[in-house]
């Protein structure tokens, strides 16, 4: 059983090697079979492994496999070893299964692209790196995967590199996540200095004994790790790269920037729960960051006009929910939201990709419209995804996961009524912008003619994901309604238990309020964009509202803020040193030697006579020395 672990990341790596080395000489069909096939096989292996894991859980709660010793320096040992516990298994399943569906979809989506092989090679490398990230037994290996996904994200955002804007978007994503990565690396160094090991099980065991609870040291370590997670997961204040990252192809957005990579931060926090639990302060920070992020990103999503940017902001906001859940100590609720979010957000991105492709690469939602009857499959699947995003009660997976988070935001030990209120406002906003998106894109009159409906390769993954977006929530019910806790039973083994406040109000009230918020959000969207569109038109004439709208549209002007705070001072400093002061020393040395060269080259006049005379003078000089000394 444990011997096949290595296959899961090795298969995509093999696909990457084949496609990057021989991709030019293969036909598109072969490329698609190799590229999607390896991920599909990895998914099958994972599912088989998962079934075995659930039927006969290993004794210590994890499968482990050590491949080889990676490095061994003094007292630092680091091996290339994998470890799969329940938490990794959830991530593993999502990465391989959703990844496989997205690969299949890409085979149809990218069929007219000339860099077919490069696309699949990068996607396979991404899957490999992401698998290493979640399977890693030690933090060094995790960091390898962490940087690997960053690299692939960069490569795939800039996939259509001939457009300058895409290259800028790729660079921006790379730089900003690098800030988080650097913080995380420092956190790892500190952790190693204190504990002398980077093996995850060893850290989990040693941390509570070694560190004093909420000491400055553990707080700074947890903060640095959190900063790493915030960079990768696009949380405020490092969220600005994700909306621009939509420059990549839609399957990339679905796989990397919705389902898997942006949740790496969630994984990191959950994986390092032993460290985070020692610092209640950082846990609170995590919750606040999540809450602030979900509100800021939700507000921005309300006014975007680019279909993919709406989804990007909504991703930031949903990942904010996950951070909120982790921060209040509702570990399994956060992971559960990741699980359902991966399905419905991947679905929404893929469906959006299908819409964009059918409408001659049109991104603006106000140039779409009336697609309900033209693209029925895309419409129904999109509807399923949108329902899950809006957390429509009982018929969507999103309801079950988001309701839990809302409940724990109040009732868990780290919870707070204020956090709950923000999360509730987020739920309202989410329902509103989802409705707006649906109504504008699929209802109304047709504004752009469709070229060709998506093929079967693209629709099947949509249908499967749509089914999952509906049913994936049924494995975990709110415990006051029905006692089904399949998900948390499994995940809880790898995570600390949830502690609730002693006195909490009835959960039914909270559910009713949450449902009411969702329905009000949907109704508001319906009112403003379908029933009475005159209201929005009237608002557009109020300068204050237009200003607010532009403020939200620009993502709360974070880009401008960073430009003023960091880019311009940096440009100023560089302009001061434009003459390159230090280089003056070296140019000075060069000019001294040129001057000496001018003097000495007079003696080399090319005339034999001068040379003979100088030889003669030399001889006379030596003879004179002989005589007179």
């Amino acid at each position: 059983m444990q011997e096949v672990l290595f296959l899961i990341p090795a298969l995509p790596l093999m696909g990457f090697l084949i496609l990057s080395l021989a991709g030019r000489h293969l036909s598109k069909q072969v490329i698609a079979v190799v590229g999607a096939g390896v991920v599909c096989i990895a998914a099958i292996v994972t599912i088989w492994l998962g079934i075995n894991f659930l039927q006969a859980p290993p004794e210590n709660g994890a499968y482990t496999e050590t491949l080889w010793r990676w490095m061994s320096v003094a007292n630092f040992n680091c091996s290339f070893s994998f470890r799969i516990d329940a938490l990794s298994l959830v991530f593993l399943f999502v990465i391989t299964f959703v990844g496989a569906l997205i690969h299949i979809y890409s085979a149809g989506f990218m069929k007219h692209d000339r860099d077919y092989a490069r696309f699949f090679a990068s996607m396979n490398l991404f899957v490999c790196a992401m698998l290493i990230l979640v399977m890693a037994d030690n933090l060094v290996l995790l960091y390898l995967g962490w940087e690997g996904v960053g690299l692939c994200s960069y490569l795939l955002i800039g996939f259509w590199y001939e457009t300058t804007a895409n290259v800028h978007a790729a660079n921006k994503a790379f730089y900003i996540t690098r800030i988080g990565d650097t913080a995380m690396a420092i956190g790892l160094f500190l952790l190693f200095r204190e504990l002398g090991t980077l093996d995850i099980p060893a850290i989990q065991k040693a941390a509570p004994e070694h560190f004093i609870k909420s000491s400055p040291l553990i707080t700074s370590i947890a903060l640095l790790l959190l900063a790493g997670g915030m960079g990768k997961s696009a949380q405020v204040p490092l969220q600005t790269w994700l909306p621009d990252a939509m420059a990549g192809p839609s399957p990339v957005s679905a796989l990397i920037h919705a389902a898997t990579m942006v949740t790496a931060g969630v994984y990191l926090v959950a994986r390092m729960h032993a460290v985070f639990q020692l610092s209640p302060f950082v846990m609170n920070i995590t919750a606040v960051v999540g809450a602030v992020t979900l509100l800021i990103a939700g507000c921005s999503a309300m006014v975007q006009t680019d279909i993919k940017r709406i989804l990007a902001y909504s991703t930031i906001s949903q990942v904010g929910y996950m951070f909120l859940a982790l921060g209040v100590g509702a570990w399994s609720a956060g992971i559960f939201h990741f699980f359902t979010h991966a399905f419905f957000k991947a679905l929404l991105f893929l469906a959006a990709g299908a819409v964009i492709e059918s409408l001659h690469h049109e991104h603006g939602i106000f140039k779409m419209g009336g697609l309900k009857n033209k693209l029925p499959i895309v419409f129904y699947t999109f509807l399923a995804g949108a329902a899950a995003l809006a957390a429509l009660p009982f018929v969507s997976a999103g309801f079950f996961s988001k309701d839990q988070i809302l409940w724990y935001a109040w009732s868990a030990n780290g919870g707070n009524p204020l956090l709950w209120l923000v999360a509730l406002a987020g739920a309202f906003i989410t329902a509103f912008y989802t409705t707006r998106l649906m109504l504008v894109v699929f209802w109304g009159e047709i504004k752009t003619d469709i070229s060709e409906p998506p093929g079967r390769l693209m629709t099947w993954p949509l249908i499967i994901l749509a089914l999952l977006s509906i049913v994936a929530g049924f494995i975990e019910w709110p415990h006051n309604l029905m006692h089904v806790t399949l998900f948390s039973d499994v995940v809880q083994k790898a995570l600390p238990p949830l502690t609730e406040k002693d006195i909490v109000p009835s959960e039914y009230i909270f559910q009713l309020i949450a449902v009411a918020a969702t329905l009000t959000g949907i109704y508001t969207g319906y009112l403003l964009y379908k029933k009475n569109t005159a209201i929005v038109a009237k608002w557009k004439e109020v300068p204050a509202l237009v200003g607010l709208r532009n403020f939200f549209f620009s993502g709360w002007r974070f880009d401008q803020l960073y430009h003023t705070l960091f880019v311009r001072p940096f440009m100023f400093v560089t302009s001061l040193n434009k003459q390159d002061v230090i280089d003056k020393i070296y140019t000075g040395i060069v000019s001294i030697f040129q001057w000496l060269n001018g003097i000495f080259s007079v003696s080399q006049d090319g005339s034999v006579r001068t040379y003979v005379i100088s030889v003669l003078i030399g001889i006379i000089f030596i003879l004179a020395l002989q005589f007179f000394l």
Partner: protein
Amino acid sequence: MQSYSVLVVAAILFVLGLLGVLTRRNIIFILISVEIMLNAAGVAFVAAGARWGQPDGQVMFLFILAMAASEVSVGLALVMQVYHQHKTLDVSKLNNLKDDIET
């Protein structure tokens, strides 16, 4: 006293050759002047060998003869080439190796 006068002859020959090298413009004459200087050195060796009754001086002169022969053959070959390329044997015009300062 005998060797002293021979050394004076050698010195006169050497200075004659040196003056030839310094003043002549034609390469061939310069080569001839070099030969004269070599012979002056040879005379000095022979005189020194006779002075101490040793064969070394004459052996040395034989070396100088061999060396001079080879030097002349190489030198004349070079002169041929120089004339072929530059159509002149005037050393004051053959100063292409002069270093032009660029800066």
